[in-house]
């Protein structure tokens, strides 16, 4: 099996995770730009599969029964077929006892040999907490280059340049792989853009000349692992339920001190059906409880209105709120990345702005909107 692009997908009880589906979409764009085929690899543990029946080299088999994935549910062969057809590419399911629970070491041990065998140009991994856990080590095992948190790519005089953010999202860089394969961890909202000039090579879909296949590969662990997974833990506290809130007012480190959370609560109190949230930094500082955290390692919300107060807007927080219908951001720094996603931007000192809002409400409002301007 040969392919220019390998996607390593994660599965949950509902099949491919949404982050993995996003990477499959990204990889399709990359495959077109690079004129390569792609294949999706799914590691897991499937107790109903007789591993002795799984060929070592992998050929499509249609007589395997549905089986359960250790990630908590069923990953039927039918699902793998659906992915293969939707992605327009082959899917290989890796089967192994040591893959029954995730660990970076087990996944790297299972993925290295097959990646070496396929010898792709690109290995695309979702930028999830697992993806960036095992991705770097996989790159070292393969002697590969590594670019993390990729947001997009473009073709520039024959070179594929990958874009990523740094310095809290205020800056971006373009990175060129110089060693192959290139391991890329892809953000779910990444975009791919193509050079305007037409690409000479044939589209990847045509190269294969046959329908996509599902194959199963048994990957026994060939050496003792030094990491022992002990399983998932119950959540330390019940998450706060933001789903009923029409307005979420969120506090970031920019509020400056623990006592200023009162001001945030008072601002939230101005709106009916509101809730107070916060960034991770505010939880780490002990200013608000963890269950209020919004972001990659907290809750994901999409209320009608999200008011970000003193939040820089680095990617981990944006991941949790960028789909809010309307976003107002208040930050002293006009370059804060939060303004990338905001609809209304207030560049102001929070400690002046919020009291001004509360005072206006208390003493009656001046209508200063454009609808009242004479000309």
């Amino acid at each position, binding site marked *: 099996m040969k392919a220019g692009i390998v996607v390593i997908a994660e599965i949950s009880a509902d099949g491919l995770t949404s982050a993995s589906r996003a990477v499959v979409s990204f990889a399709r764009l990359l495959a077109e730009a690079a004129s390569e085929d792609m294949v999706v690899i799914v590691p897991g543990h499937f107790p109903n599969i007789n591993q002795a029946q799984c060929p070592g080299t992998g050929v499509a088999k249609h007589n395997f029964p549905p089986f359960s994935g250790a990630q908590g549910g069923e990953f039927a062969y039918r699902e793998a077929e659906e992915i293969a057809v939707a992605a327009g590419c082959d899917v290989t399911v890796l089967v192994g006892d040591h893959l029954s*629970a*995730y*660990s970076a070491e087990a996944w*790297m041990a299972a993925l290295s040999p097959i990646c070496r065998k396929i010898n792709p140009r690109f290995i695309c991994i979702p930028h*999830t*907490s697992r993806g*960036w*856990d095992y*991705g*770097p080590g996989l790159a*070292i*095992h393969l002697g590969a*280059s*590594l670019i*993390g*948190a990729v947001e997009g790519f473009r073709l520039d005089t024959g070179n594929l340049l990958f874009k990523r953010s*740094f*310095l*809290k*999202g*205020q*800056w*971006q*860089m*373009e*990175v*060129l792989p*110089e060693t192959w394969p290139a391991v890329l961890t892809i953000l779910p909202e990444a975009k791919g853009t193509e050079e305007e000039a037409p690409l000479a090579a044939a589209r990847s879909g045509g190269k294969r000349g046959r329908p996509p296949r599902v194959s199963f590969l048994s990957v026994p662990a060939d050496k003792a692992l*030094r*990491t*022992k997974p*002990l399983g*998932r833990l119950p*959540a*330390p506290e019940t998450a706060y339920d933001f789903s009923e809130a029409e307005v979420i007012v969120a506090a970031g480190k920019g509020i400056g001190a623990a006592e200023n959370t009162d001001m945030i609560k008072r601002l939230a109190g101005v*709106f009916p059906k509101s809730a107070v949230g916060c960034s991770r*930094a505010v939880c780490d500082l*002990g200013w608000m409880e*963890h269950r209020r955290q919004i972001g990659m390692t*907290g*809750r*994901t919300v999409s209320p009608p*209105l999200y008011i970000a107060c003193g939040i*820089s807007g*680095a990617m981990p927080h944006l991941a949790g709120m960028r789909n809010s219908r309307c976003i*107002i951001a208040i930050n002293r720094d*006009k*370059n804060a*990345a939060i303004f*990338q996603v905001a609809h*209304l931007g*207030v560049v102001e*000192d929070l400690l002046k*702005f919020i009291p*001004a809002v509360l*005072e206006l*409400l208390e003493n009656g409002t*001046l209508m200063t*909107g454009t*609808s009242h301007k004479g000309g």
Partner: protein
Amino acid sequence: MKILVCIKQIIPPELAELSDRPEIKIMDEDPFPLTMPSSDDNCYRLNPFDEYAIEEALRIRESFTDVTVDALSLGPKRCRRALLRALEMGANNATLLHLDRAATLTPFETASILAGYLRDKAYDLILTGVMAEDGMNGQTGQLIAALLDIPCASAVISERLLSPQGPVYVEREEDGGERTAYEINLPAVLTIQSGINRPRYPALSHVLRARTQEIATLDAVTLIPAPRERIVSVFRTESSATCTFISGTPIEKAGQFLDFCRQKGFLAL
């Protein structure tokens, strides 16, 4: 037991500026176009995520006897300030791998240099912060582990060493705040997530001791590997096309904010 904490002195994001290269440009061998607006070394700071790593190492030292905590950093001479902070918090020793252009390195180059130094040092546990606040790669610890062929767990939100010989029990924090647990044999690398502990303020006794303590300095240039990626250009994120900024005094802005909320139906007229 020997514990090593890798720390980084970072460029505060709000202070970074492009040094007279405002447009997108292909970089050559010159140092990174990003600089600080002043030459005041006090602008730089210890990566906040690394403080959690230092604190966690110190707590392990307090739980067992005969444990040392060493701090290691890669960068120009100004990084000694970050190492000094580690000593003031209570680290036993500090070493600087000196390289002026460390800010331009990719995570692979950084990790290779650090791993090259660490290879024969026989540390039982290597800790790093989960990521640096400036580069935001979150890869260096994992790369060091793979280069040294030792196991690694990233985004560790809780750890407990069962004995100085290991194994170490860790909990990783995954997306959405879920936790998974592992037992890992030593030697190992752990990248430490923020919120795992509350980093201590330097104690006076450590501050005084740190003043006269030598920070070993070694030249890192022999450890630089052939790079595997190249940063081709660096530029400010484009201003958003969708954001409307309001202006005026705080009261005027507050008025416009309330008008906006009323017009959108979030507040009663």
